[in-house]
Structure formats: structure tokens, C-alpha cells
């Protein structure tokens, strides 16, 4: 938005951005307040950060959350990429059924996923805790990966694989040296999306976690119900900075890989 060129649209957008960012900035500002509540700013202080790092329970939970997220999205990326390859190879009604089944967990409300997984784990006798949370996160991350990878696969010219065979590649070589590198941006985006879904999840984890195991969302939920605690603000600020760095990193990586990958679009463009 250029300052010298006022438009109502620009003003509207500015307002939307203020609303979107106000709560986040609000949290961050009070994380540096010396006071104990979010009512009045009491002067600059790192006290809440000191408290946060001294809070062993909170640190454990943050680590738990990260382990679950990293592990779940990694496994989901592997299975999801395989799934996308399977769907890509399928035809007709079979393909449509696979796609519909794939999307069930995408469109299901979290409470349904949480409740049905809870029944599932209970029936199987899986103890509620790290394992059940990890399995659930893998489960709801898989379709995200499939949806990110599949369009990249569809963009690939079918002759690309033929070309690899033609040049002597085996099926495995065609996959590992041509298909996977060519869809790498999609796989990467899938992993990234899975990571954020996992980090962000509250409801599913809330249902399937047991006594000994908690993730950040669940912990904040229980603490927030007890009232304001500025340690959480400090945590939010740190998490926001980490997210920001991740997004910037992602932005640059996808921009870079986008350059190499654009040929798929360009290729169709010059066929006139």
C-alpha cells in the first residue's frame, strides 16, 4: 500500500491487518511487561522469559510437542507421498474412491476425528499417551501431504517417466532420479503443512492423550482456564518468532525450487 495513493480498499485492508495482528502483538507486548496480568503495562522486563525457562514442565511439553510434530510429519510425508503415487497410478472410479477416502479426514471436524480415534485406540487396547497422540497426528497429516504432492504429480508430463525408461532407467531409478526430485517442492510443502497442522492441533490431541502426556495446545488450554499467566505470553512470542523464521525460510526455498519447477508450466506454454 503506497502512502501517497489513498484508496478505500487500502484502508479496508489495513483495518483487516490490524485486526489479524492486534491479538498477536498484544500477547507479545505483555510478555515484556513486569506486571503479572495483561491489564496494564508495568515496564520492560524479561522476567516471564526467565520463568518460562525455569518451568521444567513447560519445557518438557514444548519438547514433546516438537518431537510429535517432527516425527508425525516425517512419517506422514513418506506414507502420503506413496499414497499420492498410488492415486496417480489409479484410474476411473477407483481413483475417485481413493480421493474421497483420502479427504475424509480433511473435512471431518476435529471432534469427530478425536472421538472416533479415542474409540479406536480403546478397542485396540493402545494406552493413551505418546503413542496414541503420535499415531493420530500421523493419521490426520497423511491426507494433507497427499493433497500437496498430488498436484505436482499431475503437473508432471507423463512422457517424463517414459523418457527416463527410454534413457535406460529402471523403475526405481525413474522414481528416485526423476519423479521424486521433480515433485520435491510438493513433498516439501506437504511436510511443512503437516508440521503446522500437527503443531496447531488441539482437539484431536485433547481426546486421545492420556494422563502422563501433554502437548502445548492442551497445556495452554488447561492453563488458560485457570486465568492469565504471562509465561504463556513469553512462549507465544518465542513461537511467533520461530514460525516467522520458518515461513521466511519456506518462502525462499519454495521460491528457489519454483524456478526450476516452472518448466512444467512453461513447457505447455510454448506448445502453441
Amino acid at each position, binding site marked *: 500500500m503506497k502512502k501517497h495513493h489513498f484508496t478505500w480498499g487500502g484502508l479496508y485492508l489495513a483495518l483487516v491487518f490490524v485486526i489479524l495482528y492486534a491479538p498477536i502483538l*498484544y500477547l507479545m507486548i505483555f510478555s515484556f511487561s513486569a506486571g503479572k496480568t495483561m491489564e496494564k503495562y508495568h515496564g520492560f522486563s524479561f522476567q516471564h522469559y526467565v520463568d518460562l525457562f525455569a518451568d521444567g514442565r513447560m519445557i518438557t511439553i514444548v519438547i514433546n510437542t516438537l518431537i510429535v510434530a517432527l516425527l508425525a510429519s516425517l512419517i506422514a510425508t513418506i506414507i502420503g507421498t506413496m499414497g499420492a503415487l*498410488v492415486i496417480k497410478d489409479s484410474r476411473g472410479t477407483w481413483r475417485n474412491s481413493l480421493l474421497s477416502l483420502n479427504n475424509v479426514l480433511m473435512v471431518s*471436524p*476435529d471432534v*469427530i476425528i478425536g472421538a*472416533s480415534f479415542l474409540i479406536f485406540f480403546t478397542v485396540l487396547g493402545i494406552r493413551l499417551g505418546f503413542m496414541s497422540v503420535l499415531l493420530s497426528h500421523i493419521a490426520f497429516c497423511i491426507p494433507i501431504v497427499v493433497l500437496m504432492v498430488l498436484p505436482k504429480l499431475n503437473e508432471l508430463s507423463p512422457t517424463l517417466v517414459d523418457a527416463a525408461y527410454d534413457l535406460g532407467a529402471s523403475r526405481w531409478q525413474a522414481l528416485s532420479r526423476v519423479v521424486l526430485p521433480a515433485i520435491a517442492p510438493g513433498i516439501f510443502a506437504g511436510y511443512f503443512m503437516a508440521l503446522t497442522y500437527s503443531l496447531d492441533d488441539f482437539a484431536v490431541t485433547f481426546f486421545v492423550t492420556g494422563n502422563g502426556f501433554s502437548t502445548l495446545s492442551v497445556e495452554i488450554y488447561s492453563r488458560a482456564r485457570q486465568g492469565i499467566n504471562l509465561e504463556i505470553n513469553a512462549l507465544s512470542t518465542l513461537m511467533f518468532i520461530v514460525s516467522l523464521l520458518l515461513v521466511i525460510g519456506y518462502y525462499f526455498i519454495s521460491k528457489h525450487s519454483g524456478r526450476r519447477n516452472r518448466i512444467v508450466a512453461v513447457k505447455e506454454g510454448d506448445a502453441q
Partner: protein
Amino acid sequence: MRQKVLFTIPYALWILLFVIAPLVLIFYQSFFNIDGQATLGNYATYLTSRVYLKMTLNSVWYAFLITLVTLVISYPTAYVLNRLPNKQFWLLLVILPTWINLLLKTYAFIGLFSQTGTINQFLRFVGLGSHQLLFTDASFMFVAAYIEIPFMVLPIFNSLAEINPSLINASKDLGASQWQAFTKVVWPLSLPGVKAGIQAVFIPSLSLFMITRLIGGNRVITLGTAIEEHFLTTQNWGMGSTIGVILILAMFIVMFVTGEGRQKGGHRG
């Protein structure tokens, strides 16, 4: 061939264990009462109880309002965004807040809306006096809409970005005014995005329970809240599953009405 089988097994297992089995189980569970006896009682209770029916209607009504508010805010946002230079960057800024943990954002609103919070301080300062903001319908809807906005903006933005600009020029060339070009060309062509957005917002809104608890203060009871309560508080899984089945039905209806959209549905409580 071996490679194909190798790839199919994990994905097929996932579909079987984590897609089909849980759905079958929740359906199966809905025919059992709290003592583990097979019964149709849960459905009978649901269909005859004024409390449950009212709750369902309530839930649908709130979800509708949240979706409407989100749409009204998001469409112009997506429209203006789409006309900016560097629009991808601005879009990223809209999406960025979704990377912040949902609980943290909700938590921020508790502070903002509380009796002694910033908003009330501001209201007192301009002489409007302080008001009960937290635990009201309005605050519940505001926070829900706040959280959903990016999920509505994104599909609408995408469908607007896909519209070939020469179509708008063509309509103007054929005599359409700015407004006519919008209503007759832009709006119809952006409908798929709007539908995808509605789908991405309405279904999660039906099942919100975290926001109802923290911001709505249990004044608003949704299908999601009821399921959570039956499963985790009263331990009546049968009744919880019954409401779950109802919710799944509602979901299918919404998907049918808004057509096949494949936008991200959203994992939000």
C-alpha cells in the same frame, strides 16, 4: 510391480485403520448405552429431546452466522489483495497468523476482552463505560470469525487470481459498468472459491468446542461441545457417538450443497 505393492500397503493400511475403522466404530458405538447394552435409545433420546434438537439448531445457526461474518469480511479482503502489486506477499501476511497456535490467539482474546482488559479500558476512556465482553455470543462469534478469516480468504483469493483479466476488459468493452462487471463476471467466476471457503469454515464452526468454553463461557453449546462432554466428562460414549453421527450427516449435507471442493478443511477445535 513389486514397487507398486510396496507403496500401496502403508497407504491402504492407513485408509483401513484410520479412515474406515474409526468411522465404522463411531457408528457402531452410537448403538450402545452407557452400560454397554445394544440399544436404539441414543437416537430416540436425541430425536425426542428438546434440549438436543435445540442445541443442534443453535449450533447450525451459530455456524451459519460465523460463516456469514467471515465471508463478508474475507471477500473484500481477497478482492483488494488480488489487485495489489506483490499480492503473494500480502497473502502470506494474511496466512501468517494461522501459523500461530490457535490456543495462543484465543488466549490473547481472553486478555483483550476481560472485564479489566484493554478493550474495556479503551471503552471507559472514551466514556462508554465497561461492558461484559467475555462469555457473550458476540465475542464468541468474533473470535471464531477471527480464526477462520485466513481459511476463507485463501480459496477466494485463489479463484479471483485465476480469473483472466481480459474477461473483465471484455465485459467492459461490451458495455458493462464496473459494478456490472463485478456482479456478472467476477462474482460468478469466484463462486468455486467462495464455496470452498464456506466448506472450510462452516464444518469446523459446527464443532467448535474450545472457543465455546474459553470465550463463550459455555453459554453457547454446540454439537462439538456436546460430543466432548459426553466423551470426556460424562463418559457416555454412546450418546456422544450418536451426536457424532449427526454431525457427520450435517457435514455430508454441507459438502453436497457446496459441491466438491478440495480446500483444506482445517483442524481447529
